Structures are given as C-alpha cells and as structure tokens.
C-alpha cells in the first residue's frame, strides 16, 4: 500500500507541467534613438526597477541594453521591450537566452514556453542544430535572435546547451 501511494505521488510530480516551463536568463536588446547620457540613465534606471532584473547596463555607442535576469523571474521579452518604448526609444532585434524544456506544438514545431506564458518558436537553418533540438528532451539553454510576432516570438537558434 505504501509503495502504491509513493508511486502515485511520484507519477503526479512527473505529470506536473512545472519542468516544461522555461524562463528568460539574459536579454541583449538593440535600442534605436538613444543619443546621450540622460537617455541611457533613464532607460537603465527603468529596467533596473523591474522585478526580476539582476543587472542592466546600457551602451549608447552600440545602442544596446544588456540585462541579466534573476532565477525564477517572471519577466517577459515583451515587458522589457515595452519598457524601452516607454523610455521614448525603439526596441529593435534582441538576442535572448532562455532555459527550459522543449515541447512540440500542434504543427510539430519545437516550442519553449515560459512560466509567464511567453512562447518562443524555435527555428534554425542549421541541420546540426535541428538535430540537437530534436534529440534534446531534457532541460536546455537556448540562445538565439528573437523576432517578435503577434502571438508568439520566433527564436532563431544560435546555440544550445544541455
């Protein structure tokens, strides 16, 4: 009886979706329109105030906002991009690092979905990378260039780590 209950509890944990939920670890957001020190100061201050941000820095010459996010953060790429726009600038392309477990959507495409519900559709033109994605079933860390769309963001995979 005890063994039966223990097996049931373990099974329930295996069924829980917690392990499949990814999270953002790093965002390198290209920003257009920042020309001077108060621009950078204002954006840096706004981002640093966001719950879940570990560190943020701004480069005027590169037009780049670099953020490292805390473990178990509830941040979204969309939220970070909105903060850039609220500062008066334009959020362009972003390179992000996301950790999580890959699942497949109805079309058979690989997807990483974060705790906050933000979905990243994984794409790559590199055959080796495609094999790496399909063979991974465990938690992975994916780095890639994000292209935001209406419903989900396409992540062009540059690197995968187990």
């Amino acid at each position, binding site marked *: 009886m005890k063994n039966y209950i223990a097996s049931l509890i373990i099974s329930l944990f295996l069924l829980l979706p917690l392990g499949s939920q990814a999270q953002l670890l790093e965002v390198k957001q290209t920003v257009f329109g920042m*020309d001077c020190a108060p621009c*950078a100061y204002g954006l840096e201050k706004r981002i640093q105030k966001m719950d879940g941000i570990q560190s943020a820095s701004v480069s005027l010459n590169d*037009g780049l906002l670099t953020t490292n996010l805390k473990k178990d953060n509830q941040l979204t790429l969309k939220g970070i991009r909105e903060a850039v726009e609220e500062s008066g*600038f334009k959020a362009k392309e972003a390179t992000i690092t996301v950790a999580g477990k890959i699942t497949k959507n109805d079309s058979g495409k690989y997807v990483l979905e974060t705790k906050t519900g933000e979905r990243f559709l994984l794409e790559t033109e590199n055959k080796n990378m495609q094999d790496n994605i399909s063979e991974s079933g465990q938690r992975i860390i994916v780095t890639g260039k994000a292209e935001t769309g209406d419903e989900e963001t396409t992540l062009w995979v540059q690197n995968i780590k187990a």
Partner: protein
Amino acid sequence: MVYKYFPKINITTTVVVAVFVLCLNIATNSYAQGGHGPVFTLATPTLGQGELSFDVMAMSTRQGNSAWMIRQNWHYGLTEDIQLNVSVPTTLQKIDNPPQGRLGTMMGSYGDLEVSGLFRFYKTYPGVGQRFESSLLLSGSVPTEDKRGGIHVGPSLHGGLVTGYASRTFYAWAGGGYQYYSEQHNDQLGDIGYITGVIGYRPPVFQHDYPKPDWRIFVESVTEWVGGSKQNGLKIGNTGGTKSLLGPSVLGLYGKWGLSGGILFPIYSTFSEPQESESYRLNFVLSYWF
C-alpha cells in the same frame, strides 16, 4: 553705451547668486528636454513616461541696463511623447524696460510664470543613436508683475512647432511659434512671432560611451517679430520691431547631471529710439534627472 542704473555685479553678488542657484537643488534644463537641448531655442525631445526632471537657470539680458533672473523649471513625462512643464521666474535684478521677446523659447517671456505641454507627435528611428522627430509646444503664462516697461501685463497664450534630428554626432532643430498677450487694464503688450534654428555637434573625443562625460556645442539663432504695444487703448509709437540674435552654447552631461550655458548677440534689429537695443542674452543652467 554703458548704464550704471543698478549696482555692478561684483564678486560677492556673483557668489550669492551661485550659492542660491545651487541651493535650489537644480533641475532640468527646460531647453535641454531630456538632456538633448540647446539653451535658447526650440527642441523636440520629451522625457520618458513617469520621468521627472528639474532645472535652475541664471539668466541675464542687457537692454541699456543688465537684468538678472533665476528660473526654476519642472518637467514630467506623462507619456514618452507628452511632457508637462512648469517654469517659475524669480527676478534678481530688474530693469525698468525689459526687452520684449521670449528670452528662452521653451520657458516663457521675461517675468512670466508659464505652464506648458510638449507633444512629440512624430518620431522615427533611422539607426543606433538617431532620431527624427517633431513636437508641438502649447503654453499659457501669467505675469509675476503688474507692469512691464510701464505697461500693464496680462496673461498670454503661446504655441510653437519644432522639428529636428538628434544623433550621437550631429543635432539640428528648426521651429517657430507665436505668443499672444491679453489686454490688461486697457494695456496690451505686443504679440511675439519667432523662428529658431540650431545646429549641434558632439566632437569624437566626447563620443565616449555612457556613463563617461558627454559634451556638445551648439550654434543657436532666434529671430523675433514683436508687435507694438498699447497703453490706455492707444497704440504706443516706436514699440515693437524685429530682431535676430546668434550665438554659441555648450551642454555637458554626466549621468543624471547636466550643465549648460550660452550667449546670444543681436545681429539685426529694427527697434528704434527710444527703445533700447538688446545687447545680449546670457543663460547658465544646471540640470538634474531624478
């Protein structure tokens, strides 16, 4: 012609003014909206949403005699495209007949308390560090004195339009506006129409990345068409005229602090006797972003 109607600005007075300015815990430069700005002319930038800045400026003009004024300006970003501003003047050294004109196009005329809104209605971002944008400035002012140059001063309305370009190397803005003074006790100051233009340059030596110090230089120009004034319902002869001023300014930024200053000299004037010609406009600004 040099007048000594008021005491000379001596070292003691200069120190007192400087301490007073610093004690006011300066704030933003109303011209350097978001830190981009020239000192005397229209510019487009607005603060980010929810951002607050505050500046203090020490200003002087000379029309026969020298006048000195402190202005305190608050700026708040309602959205990233709408900025609200309040500009409060404090006269330190008055002259009987101050020059007509907007001493600083984005903050109000001599002795006027002004509330304004800056609406950035167009923006585009061609690349890293670059913006093309256009803004509309609307304001209302009330005078802080009963009379100016012997004429009762009423509240005024003002509107301005400015467009321009900002980047890591070059800046340029061009704009114009119009201010209307209402009648007060049968007196009325002349309307002010104006255009402004400015170009700016950040030398490569100051194109360091944030948070290193950031300096740039500007060449600014203002042309004002000032209407004749009325007293007791009658037009006053030999009031009003056209003037153009030109001069350099410099803006330095470090983190959340800014320091700027500039001077304009008249290069053209149709103001005739007994009106004095304006000799210069001088402005020093210390800015702080919260």
